[in-house]
Each structure stands twice: as structure tokens, then as C-alpha cells.
């Protein structure tokens, strides 16, 4: 404790020093920050100028001047980098020293000046008042905290846990019951997994055994780095990735049901009568207008008569019928034979498969799921469709959901069923007339959309939830043709109606319309640039997909019921007599070849690498070597 007068001079001096060092410190701070920002903005080690120069040199290796320039720039850059670092470091030390001086000066002043504080002015000591105040503030802030937390929670809540569980269980394809436990078991050894999938009985036969025994052979896999061996090998119950789906031909009009296949090496000439370029030909026991679907080397078909319904599996390599499973004893199956037209038949809808199971639906509403060895997994009857020509919408799958378009007279709907159990996952009522078209799955770049066409509208649904995404009224009549999709545009057509091009996206709208040529049965087909429309009387027309300019039309002369397919930039058109016209997918008409099948056909061909599969009236043909 000092007594007497404080040494004013010393204090003054100290104050000046502290002021000086404070100013110095502030200046240093600014300098360091500026330096930092400079380095951050233009990292001398990563100058784009340098990259450009080096690229130039690689194109012109003999340019010595350029070489010299690079070396100089490099030297400068490295120097700048290390100088900047040195500057920051030195600046930091100086800053530290100046602050040290500042603090010691202030402490010294405090020490010198320290004196007894003045007695505080006598003011009322409001202890209890402040106490109550504190209590209230605690209550307020507590409430505020909880409200804020809840608000934040609701604003940011994203059901992550549910998503994770869904994603986890989706991958395993397991039902809801074993979700949590199931995904945690995943770490267990592969042997155990193999056994597990065997017990589950579904999709296990071939693949489960494959993982346990010596080897699994999968042919016709394209060169791809995306495909992981484990997805198809280990987890036999996981749904296939979209890539695997597009590598196969799992549904009517190919993956997604839009008539486009990415398979290559597709034959362009054959003759079914002489057997030229026909690998094999197998008679199919029961008739049906459904088209073949293929997964790896298994091909699936169905056939029906008034008394029997059967599903067939053929070896795509040899053409041998591997199994045929009768569809019988389905609970709720109506005893009456549905009234169908001759041109629809009792087995018009095409099957679908995901490599684990195959699904078939018949005109009487029987729906069955079989495993890859033909053993029934589940079956049900959806009720006799009120449909005067006969139900003909094909099946399609997305992930673990089997989608059924059930546009009948009474309460039309689209239904999503669990592929594993057949339980209904979602069902969305549709306010439409009866239709005979088939669903399509498209990827708009942002999401997958399930597209359905029936009077009066083309409607898109979320395939996972069945939620309606958009709907445009642009179609009428008894809609038979399915949709086409290309260049982000959906094309719908029906006879006595109109051809509409619908731009997809956030707010879908009709781009252009035309009703010069219309189709009754065959679906339209779109490439990236063109739309190919085929009328049921056999005229093919090509439009510009974007603006509807007509490029050409050509009359093949014979009626066509099969839908055209696009493969390797060629359009395959199969008429009712069995003649396939192969034309270039181009704005100039150019017929590559025409190949007879030797018998009539209503069906749409299926494709694998180097092979085409065509179902004729009686036989299934494998075209290719």
C-alpha cells in the first residue's frame, strides 16, 4: 500500500508505453490478418498461372523460354510461400511481445496507483428484490431454452434414424420385423449369411449356394466398375442396384419400361424360317401375349388357358425350359373365367423380376411371386378385374416394391406391394377410366417417377410411397399404348386422342401436341433427339423430340401390335406377321434390314448382349450366335 503521492511521472511514462504498445499490437494484428487473407486468396503453391504454363509446355516441350518462365515463377512462388510464413511467425512473436509490454505496464500502473477504494455510496441493498428477479430470470431463460431447443429440433428434424433403418433394411430386403436386428447382424461371417439366406428360402437356391460352394457364374455382365461383387454375391436378399436392373431386361419394354436397352452386339439379320442366326427355338406350352423378361441367363414367360395358368423359366443360353410352375390354389381366385378379347388373351401382362424373385399377374387377378427355382413365395388374388378386354398392364419393380397398375372399372388404383411378402406397402386410388397401358419408371435426374397413362391423364407417382407427384390431362379413350421417355420428355399417345410431349421437371407442362398419326396398341419410343411413333396399322413416323417437327413417315404395310425397341441406335419394329424391320434411329429414314420370324407375333422382343428373344405365337426364338 502506497502512502503519499503517487509518482506521477512514472505513471505517465508507463501509460505512454502501454499506449504505444497497444497501437503497435493493433497495427500488427491488422498486418497479420491482411497477410493471412492474401495467402488464403492466392496460394502461391497453387497458382493457376503455373498450371496453365505447365500444360502449355506439355504441348510444346521444346519451348525453352516457357521452361525458363516456369522455373522463375516457381521460384517466386516458393519464396512467397515461405516469406508469408516467416512474416506471420515473426509478426506473431512481435505481437506477443507488445502485448506482454502492454499488460506489464498496465499491471504496474495498477500496482502503483493501488489505493483504498472509495466507500461506495450508501444505496439501499435490495437483496430480496434481486433474488426474486434472479428466480424469474432463471424461469424465463429455462423456458426460452426449452422452446428454442424444441423449435430447433422441429426445424432441423429429418427422421434420420428412420431413413437409416429403411436404407439398412432396404438393402437387405428384410421385412419390417427383423429390420433393426437384421442390419446389425450384417457383420457376421459370410458362411452364416449363406445359411441364413437359405433358410429364408427366397432367392437363395442359386446364389446362397454360390456363396457357400465353389463358384457362381454370371454371364453377360457388361464391363462395369460400378457393379460390386458383394451386392450380387453375398447379400442374396438385397435388392439389385438400378445399374444391375439396367444391365438386365427385367420388365416389359426393358428396364424402366420405356423401350430402350443399353445392351450391345444386337443382331441385325436373321431368318426364323431357315434358322439363319437363330440360336434356338423353344415351343411355349400355353399361349400368352406377354413378352419375355430376362435376368442374367434366366428368361421368364407365362401362359394361360381357360383352366390353367403357368409361369415358365428358360435357360437363355440353351433355350431349355428350366421349370414351369402352375399357378393354382390361390386364395380368392375367382372360379369364373374372365371375359377377355381374343387380342388380349388370358396372359397379356408381362412378368417382372429382380433376380431374386419373378412376379406374374393374369387376367383373373391372380398375382404370384416365385423364386428363381420356380418355388412360390407368395401369391394373392387382387380381385377379378372389371375389364372388358382383359387386364393387360404389365408389372414393374422399383427397389423392393412391386408395382401393379390396376386401372379397372371399379375403384381403379395403383398398388405397391412388398416384393418379399406381398403385403401392400401403399395403394393410391386413381380417378381414371380403364386402361391397358403399362407403367414406366423414369429417372428425371432428381428422382424416380412412376408414370401411368389412362383417360384422362398422364400421372407421375413416387414409386416408394405412391404419392402423386404430378398429373396432366392430355389423353383420352381406351388407352393401350404405354409411354415413351427421352430427352427429359414424356410422350403419350392414344388413338382418337392426341400425341403429347410433356416436359418433366419441377412443373411439368405440355411442350407440343400432334394428332396426325396416332397409335392404338404399340407404344411410342423416344431417343435423345427423336420420337418414333408407330401406328397399329403399320406406319412409322419420326418427330423431333423437342419441338415435334416431323422428319419422315414410312408405311410398312402390315399391322403392328408389338412395341418398337431402341437398341444401339437402331429401332426394332416387329409386325403382327413376325417381320422385324430394323431402321436407323435417325432423322432420315434408313432401313437396315428386315428379318422374318417365320410365325406371327404380338409380343415385344427382349434383349441381352448379342441376343434378341422374340416370342412368336407358338415358339420363343433366341436370335444370335
Amino acid at each position, binding site marked *: 500500500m502506497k502512502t503519499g503521492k503517487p509518482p506521477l511521472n512514472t505513471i505517465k511514462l508507463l501509460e505512454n508505453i502501454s499506449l504505444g504498445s497497444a497501437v503497435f499490437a493493433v497495427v500488427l494484428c491488422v498486418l497479420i490478418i491482411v497477410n493471412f487473407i492474401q495467402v488464403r486468396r492466392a496460394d502461391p*503453391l497453387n497458382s493457376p498461372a503455373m498450371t496453365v504454363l505447365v500444360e502449355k509446355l506439355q504441348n510444346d516441350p521444346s519451348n525453352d523460354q516457357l521452361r525458363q518462365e516456369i522455373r522463375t515463377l*516457381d521460384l517466386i512462388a516458393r519464396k512467397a510461400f515461405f516469406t508469408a510464413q516467416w512474416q506471420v511467425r515473426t509478426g506473431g512473436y512481435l505481437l506477443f511481445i507488445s502485448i506482454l509490454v502492454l499488460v506489464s505496464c498496465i499491471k504496474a500502473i495498477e500496482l502503483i496507483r493501488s489505493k483504498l477504494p472509495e466507500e461506495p455510496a450508501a444505496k439501499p441493498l435490495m437483496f430480496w428484490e434481486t433474488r426474486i428477479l434472479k428466480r424469474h430470470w432463471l424461469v424465463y431463460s429455462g423456458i426460452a431454452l426449452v422452446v428454442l431447443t424444441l423449435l430447433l429440433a422441429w426445424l432441423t428434424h429429418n427422421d434420420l434414424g428412420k431413413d437409416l433403418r429403411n436404407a439398412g433394411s432396404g438393402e437387405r430386403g428384410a421385412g419390417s420385423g427383423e429390420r433393426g436386428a437384421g442390419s446389425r447382424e450384417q457383420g457376421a461371417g459370410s458362411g452364416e449369411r449363406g445359411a441364413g439366406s437359405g433358410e429364408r428360402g427366397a432367392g437363395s437356391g442359386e446364389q446362397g449356394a454360390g456363396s457357400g460352394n465353389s463358384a457362381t457364374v454370371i454371364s453377360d455382365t457388361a464391363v462395369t466398375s460400378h457393379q*460390386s461383387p458383394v451386392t450380387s454375391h453375398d447379400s442374396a436378399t438385397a435388392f439389385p442396384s438400378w445399374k444391375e436392373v439396367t444391365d438386365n431386361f427385367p420388365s416389359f419394354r426393358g428396364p424402366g419400361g420405356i423401350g430402350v436397352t443399353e445392351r450391345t452386339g444386337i443382331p441385325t439379320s436373321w431368318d426364323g424360317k431357315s434358322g439363319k442366326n437363330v440360336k434356338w427355338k423353344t415351343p411355349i406350352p400355353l399361349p400368352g401375349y406377354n413378352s419375355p423378361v430376362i435376368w442374367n441367363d434366366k428368361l421368364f414367360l407365362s401362359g394361360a388357358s381357360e383352366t390353367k395358368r403357368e409361369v415358365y423359366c428358360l435357360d437363355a443360353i440353351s433355350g431349355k425350359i428350366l421349370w414351369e410352375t402352375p399357378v393354382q390354389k390361390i386364395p380368392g381366385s375367382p372360379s369364373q373365367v374372365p371375359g377377355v378379347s381374343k387380342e388380349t388373351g388370358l396372359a397379356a401382362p408381362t412378368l417382372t423380376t429382380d433376380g431374386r424373385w419373378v412376379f406374374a399377374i393374369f387376367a383373373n387377378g391372380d398375382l404370384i411371386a416365385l423364386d428363381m427355382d420356380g418355388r412360390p413365395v407368395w401369391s394373392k388374388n387382387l380381385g377379378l378385374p372389371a375389364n372388358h378386354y382383359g387386364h393387360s398392364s404389365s408389372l414393374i419393380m422399383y427397389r423392393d416394391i412391386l408395382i401393379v397398375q390396376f386401372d379397372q372399372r371399379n375403384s381403379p388404383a395403383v398398388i405397391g406391394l412388398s416384393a418379399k411378402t406381398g403385403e401392400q406397402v401403399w395403394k393410391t386410388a386413381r380417378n381414371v377410366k380403364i386402361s391397358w397401358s403399362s407403367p414406366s419408371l423414369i429417372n428425371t435426374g432428381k428422382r424416380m417417377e412412376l408414370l401411368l397413362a389412362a383417360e384422362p391423364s398422364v400421372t407421375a407417382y413416387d414409386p416408394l410411397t405412391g404419392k402423386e407427384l404430378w398429373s396432366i390431362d392430355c389423353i383420352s379413350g381406351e388407352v393401350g399404348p404405354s409411354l415413351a421417355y427421352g430427352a427429359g420428355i414424356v410422350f403419350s399417345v392414344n388413338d382418337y386422342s392426341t400425341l403429347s410431349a410433356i416436359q418433366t421437371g419441377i412443373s411439368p407442362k405440355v411442350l407440343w401436341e400432334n394428332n396426325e398419326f396416332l397409335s392404338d396398341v404399340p407404344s411410342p419410343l423416344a431417343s435423345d433427339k427423336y420420337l418414333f411413333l408407330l401406328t397399329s396399322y403399320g406406319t412409322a413416323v419420326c418427330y423431333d423430340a423437342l419441338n415435334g417437327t416431323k422428319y419422315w413417315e414410312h408405311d410398312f404395310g402390315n399391322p403392328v401390335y408389338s412395341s418398337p425397341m431402341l437398341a444401339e441406335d437402331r429401332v426394332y419394329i416387329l409386325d403382327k406377321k413376325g417381320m422385324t424391320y430394323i431402321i436407323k434411329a435417325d432423322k432420315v429414314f434408313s432401313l437396315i434390314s428386315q428379318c422374318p420370324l417365320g410365325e406371327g407375333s404380338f409380343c415385344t422382343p427382349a434383349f441381352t448382349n448379342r441376343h434378341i428373344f422374340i416370342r412368336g405365337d407358338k415358339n420363343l426364338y433366341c436370335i444370335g450366335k
Partner: protein
Amino acid sequence: MPNRREFLNTLMRGGILAALGLISGSVILRSRDKNACSGGFACSSCGKSQSCSLPAALAARQMVWQLDPSKCIQCGRCATNCVMTPSAVKCTHAYAMCGYCDLCGGYLKPGTKTLDTAAEHQLCPTNALKRKFIEDPFFEYTVEEELCIGCGKCVKGCSAFGNGSLQLQVRHDRCKNCNECSIARNCPSQAFTRVPANKPSLLKSFGKEPLEDAGRKGVRNA
């Protein structure tokens, strides 16, 4: 009244001390790290280092941060995320693995035609990797630690095109051994781990290539 307050105080204090004792006891007895225990500071005498069940906390093992090169994907975050500037992670050269190649994937920019030390050919942004001719056709590569910023560019080149003898490692003379390593937090491949201070290196070495190497990368999944 004061007595009662005093008593309550003592009771609470006793409670707090008991809780502290409980926490330390359970922490000491529960944390057993058998890996950290092998041949270590306190265990070297017992002779059964692998099966030692001495609680790790009692073995007083300091843990330090290290980068596991077999998990490293050379994302470059070691250079930018370390609390130190330049980073405490630097390239270390495991000479025993080096092929002494003329065309060094870690030294030269890809597509370089003339194999020399010219600035325009060097991959290293700071010129920290040095090339020295030994004899035809071998070149020795050394890392100048003062210059290395741990960006891992050379490491990526070497592991892709060469033997992977250049590897990133935490240099413990620079590492501050933060309680939580800032690089570890940002490491995309969880390559940073705490290792016992008496075995601070995780340099990988030959022999697992190519015959015993299948387990390292594993099979990638969907």
C-alpha cells in the same frame, strides 16, 4: 443451525469425493487396451505382454496420434487441418520399400517426358522431395522435412505408380499431441489413431505386397 449446515456440507463433500473415487476406479479398472500393452513401458518385465490384463490406465501409457498409411487416401487435409503451420504430418520415406526408380511417380508430374529435376517436372509444391543420382538406373529420393507441408501429393503418386515407400506420418517432434487431433476429426478415412507412445510409428513396409495384400484394401461395396 450452523451445526446442521456443517453436517450437510460434510455429507455433500463426502458424496462428491466418493463419486470422484467411483469414477476414477471404474475408469481405471475398465479401460484395458491389450494392444497398447504389448511390450510397453510398464509391461516389458512381465514377459506375457500380449495376454497382459493390467488396466491400461495403471500402465500409465501415454497415447500419441499417428496416421495409418494403409488407410490413408491422401486427401491432403493433413496439410490444411493441422493446428500447426506447417503441419506436423510430413512425408516419411521408407527407404527399404523404395524401388529407386528413374521414373518416380511421387517425384515427377504425370506425363513428364524428360526425367530430370527441373521445376516444371516436380510434383512437390514446395520442392521438399530431393532426387539424387546413385548409379544407372537408380535414384535416391529424400524428403527435406523443413520444406515438407504434408500435402501427400508425392505419397499419392508413389502409392499409385510405385511401391508406396513415401508415406505420411505424424512427426512427433512437431506434433503437439492435442487431446483431440484436429486432423483426426477431419480425416475422411479414420486413418488417425492413438498409438502407445513407445511405438509411435505406423510406417507400412514391404512383404504384404502383393501376395498377402488382399486384406488391405478390401472389396469395395456398392
